[in-house]
């Protein structure tokens, strides 16, 4: 059968999820049954992550017709029993965190509603305890990125203004906004909210954004770059900037225009 992958050159949203029963795509299939279709293992730039693309069946199709056509497919190719498959990526970290012994996975999709549906299905299917998610200590991330220059450079920081009537989010972007005087001036009256980071691995690069709730997003130009954002997650983990909690990051996506 022809390869059914529909990788899209567009923005992907992701969250990091942790649960003892979620260790592989096989576990996923065991939990979600017919909602999971074909899976394909992909190579990863980081050895500690296992990356797969799999089909997740949702109750409606989110792919634009032009996208399917460009992949040489039709809606019929993606449909089964009134469910429509979408390509979702899952990266599973094989090394439990030193901080708490938890394993974790990053799940990414170009369609936030697909991700929401997938997480809802998982929550219902996973045995107790409920899955947890990683939020990010963004103040710590700013400090780290201000001192780490080789593979990671922050090119945009967004602050949440506090107590300023009519002003909520302020972004600074450029070669090094973390070193600007305006960045320092905002500290007393604002709270770190999100960051955009240029991540370089060999001659591949990717621009990854993350907010403090744990939402990750990036533009995926080619499938071979899908694991690059994982190196940023590794950095956050090494610096103990990931915090486990029960709130899905998708519950706190902000309403800013560029989202």
């Amino acid at each position: 059968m022809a390869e059914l992958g529909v990788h899209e050159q567009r923005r992907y949203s992701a969250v990091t999820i942790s649960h003892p029963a979620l260790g592989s795509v096989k576990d996923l299939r065991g939990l979600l049954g017919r909602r999971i279709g074909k899976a394909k293992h992909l190579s990863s730039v980081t050895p500690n992550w296992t990356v797969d693309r799999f089909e997740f069946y949702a109750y409606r199709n989110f792919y634009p017709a032009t996208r399917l056509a460009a992949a040489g497919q039709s809606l019929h190719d993606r449909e089964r029993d009134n469910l429509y498959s979408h390509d979702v990526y899952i990266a599973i970290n094989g090394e439990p965190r030193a901080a708490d012994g938890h394993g974790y996975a990053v799940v990414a999709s170009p369609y936030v509603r697909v991700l929401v549906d997938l997480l809802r299905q998982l929550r219902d299917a996973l045995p107790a305890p409920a899955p947890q998610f990683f939020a990010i200590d963004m103040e710590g991330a700013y400090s780290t990125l201000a001192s780490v220059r080789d593979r990671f450079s922050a090119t945009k920081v967004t602050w949440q203004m506090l107590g300023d009537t009519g002003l909520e989010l302020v972004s600074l972007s450029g070669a090094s906004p973390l070193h600007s005087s305006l960045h320092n001036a905002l500290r007393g009256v604002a709270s770190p909210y999100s960051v955009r980071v240029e991540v370089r691995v060999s001659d591949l690069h990717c621009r990854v954004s993350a907010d403090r709730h744990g939402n990750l997003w990036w533009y995926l130009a080619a499938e071979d770059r899908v694991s690059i954002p994982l190196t940023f997650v590794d950095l956050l983990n090494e610096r103990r900037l990931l915090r486990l909690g029960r709130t899905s990051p998708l519950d706190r996506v902000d309403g800013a225009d560029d989202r």
Partner: protein
Amino acid sequence: MKRYLGVWRNEPSTFGIGVADQATEFLSRPHGRTSPLYPASATGSPFKLPSDGALLLLVPKSATRLLAILMNDLGSDTSARVYLSHGHAAAVVNCSDIAEARLCIDAATDELAAYEIWPHRAERVQLTEIIAVEPISAASMQIPILDSTGVGADGGQQVSQFNANLALLQQISSRYAPEMQPLVEWLHQSVDCIVEEMRELRAHAPDADGIRKAVTDESVIVELNAELTLLCSQLGSGRLPLPWHGFPVGEYSLFGIGSMVRASWSIYSHLNRTFATFDHIGAVQRRYRALPAFDAFAPSARLDYSAWASSAIGIGNITDGRQEGARYHIPRFSSRWGFHESLHSLSMSWQCLYASASREWNLLTITHEFMHAHVRDLVSEFIDPSHTPPDAILARYNIRSSGDNALESMQVAYVEALVGLYGSALLVPKAADPLVNADRVSVPERLDGQALQTVVRSQSGLFQEIIVHVLDFLYVYDGRDSDYVNSIWSSWSLVPSVIEHVDHYVFRTLCALAVESPAGTSKQIFDDAAGRLRTQLESLRDRDRIKPVIHRAIELLTEPVPRRQLFVMFPAGRYVVELARHFFVDRSLNAALVRDDLTTVRNGRRTYATDVGDYRGETIASPIGFLLDRFADYEDEAGSEEAEFASMWQMLQLT
């Protein structure tokens, strides 16, 4: 949704247990006690007692974290049997047997301070079968007893009582509310200082002033004792072993209201800690004498405040990072006092226990009371007669001198503000006369001591009220008209005496809103603020309970004569607003008050994006920010079960 769990003593070794729709069902029985229980899930079923089982009563270290475990980690069958109470045993699980109770305990062990298991059969509990683990004291030290000698018989009695009350509070808080330990320590230190002063005064044959001082000191301890007994009663209600540590309030007599007191402390202590960190009072005390003077008289005509805009002594610019330590209030609920602040206590309406998720009884009103304490302390730094005699201030005022430093400038600015308010108040009855020019204010050339006393007595309250309102509007309500007006007018309109003085309340609200009006003349600012206030009041006009007050307020803004009367006062009020804006508002403090990494931005507003009935186990860093976020979803009035549940839920998120 709500049902009452009741117990009563029927035989020496057993007690009866039952469930009813009304609290009174159990209170007529011997040693009858009862408290309401709510299903933890917003869609859960009302509490029912099976024919046999094991009732698990859980006392959390943190209710929000415990509930997150119970509602997320044990499966839906268990979470459907979790119920909420107002007491220290905030979570009650209807277990099928002791083994199931033990599974819940094991899962939640890190978040438990204590628990009891009541195995029951046929509506009976054998006392000997109750399994109880009481909380361990978190106190690291014993609070020393204060020496009650050398302060007279009455004083000695009060000190003895204080020692006993504080020891009881220490016993309760160290086990059930360790976060209140700073209050215990502060009370001890404060009364220690007072007792020392009393002893000094008695030791040196005091004169009339000395006697007055000693009596005042003793009355402070009397008041503290009164407040402490209330706090001990409320915080100590529902301690283990239940059910015999009853609370003498019928509807909460079984489990008490301990968790609600903890939640109120969470809100208060966040406010108190933030203000203590910035220590504006201390900064004024330490630095004002050494800071340059500002021109208190440049805006005397109430036209041009630009001289103040360039002043570098705004409170945000003079804080020096030092903290002299917080002083505390004793927080407690009261149906008699409602929301009220005194030197030593902060009272919240009793209705908040079941209606804090309604606009009428919302807990943001605490901030207004807190601001009164802050502003009172601030003003006392300017006008403490032991530091600067009134004659010295008067002499500078009468020659229009702003003095040599910021303290002297603020003192004359204070007098200038009061004189303006007083003079305008005299004009109000004549406001209908078209010859009265309300755009400019003229103040008398010279004051004498008697006149100064008059203006201070009659206008210092209004001066402080305006500053309180400005700070409350900016710091707590983010300068948002709708939340601010809705909150304070929903709350005020229930107070019977407000209808007699609606004009006062309209005026204060206008002053607060004016701080966010575009720059302009007093007339322009007045018209802007009045228009905005009217818009917000119009949205409240159909609410039955507050109709009379709201309708009257709208009349005052729209009928020509009352509107003009308000405008006659306005330039004088604006002077105080500008004083607050330029010298008493600190944007960094504002930011610290609402800072919380849990918030996101939706529809241009900061929000926690949390729904009633969510149990995420998150520690809310800004209780004030959380309550403000909740405000938009509140019901207007108390009374619905949904509002009761939401009230319970939000309070438990804060502990």
